[in-house]
């Protein structure tokens, strides 16, 4: 039983392209997140959605646009990819009253 799933697991693309990463959770949680893990393994929050509503938007370039079609899905679309976007992107979810976040397996994005 996969709790938080992401696709694709690996994504290799060229600078300037547009790509999307999908995330789905089957835990019934109402809050979902995107985190970025850089090459030094530092994890930082990017976005958070609660019941399809954006509640956290850190200082992330406008090229990154999250979309939540329903509370079980939170996708991340990235326009005009740059070399510095290379990282592992983790999706997570939580139930607001428990605060524990469950993480997906990550998507390793490599921009060449």
């Amino acid at each position, binding site marked *: 039983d996969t709790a938080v799933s992401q696709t694709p697991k690996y994504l290799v693309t060229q600078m300037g392209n547009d790509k999307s990463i999908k995330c789905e959770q089957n835990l019934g949680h109402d809050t979902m997140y995107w985190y970025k893990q850089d090459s030094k393994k530092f994890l930082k929050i990017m976005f958070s959605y609660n019941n399809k509503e954006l509640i956290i938007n850190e200082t992330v370039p406008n090229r990154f646009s999250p979309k939540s079609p329903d509370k079980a899905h939170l996708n991340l679309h990235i326009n005009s990819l740059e070399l510095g976007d290379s990282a592992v992107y983790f999706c997570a979810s939580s139930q607001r009253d428990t*605060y524990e976040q469950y*993480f997906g397996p*990550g998507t390793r994005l490599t921009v060449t």
Partner: protein
Amino acid sequence: AQSVSQHNHHVILSEAASLELGCNYSYGGTVNLFWYVQYPGQHLQLLLKYFSGDPLVKGIKGFEAEFIKSKFSFNLRKPSVQWSDTAEYFCAVTSIQGGKLIFGQGTELSVKP
């Protein structure tokens, strides 16, 4: 500013050695505290958490952590490590209302068989 600091970047131990990983946080308000583990090539998994109550919390796989409010610390311990504990360990904090996790920079633990 909210921040989490992990004292050790890379820790190397032999099997059966005792482990203590330091974590200090800076946060204006009451917090929830977490330790996550990331095994090589895998996603983050929750080891243990502290919300309130007994400051000594026990997690999975024999890990425990102690919250010392006066020191703003939440150190992770294990009395006897195994080779399978080789992983990256992250301390994290969030406000008691939940929301974004603020992570430390991680500590890489290597356990030699």
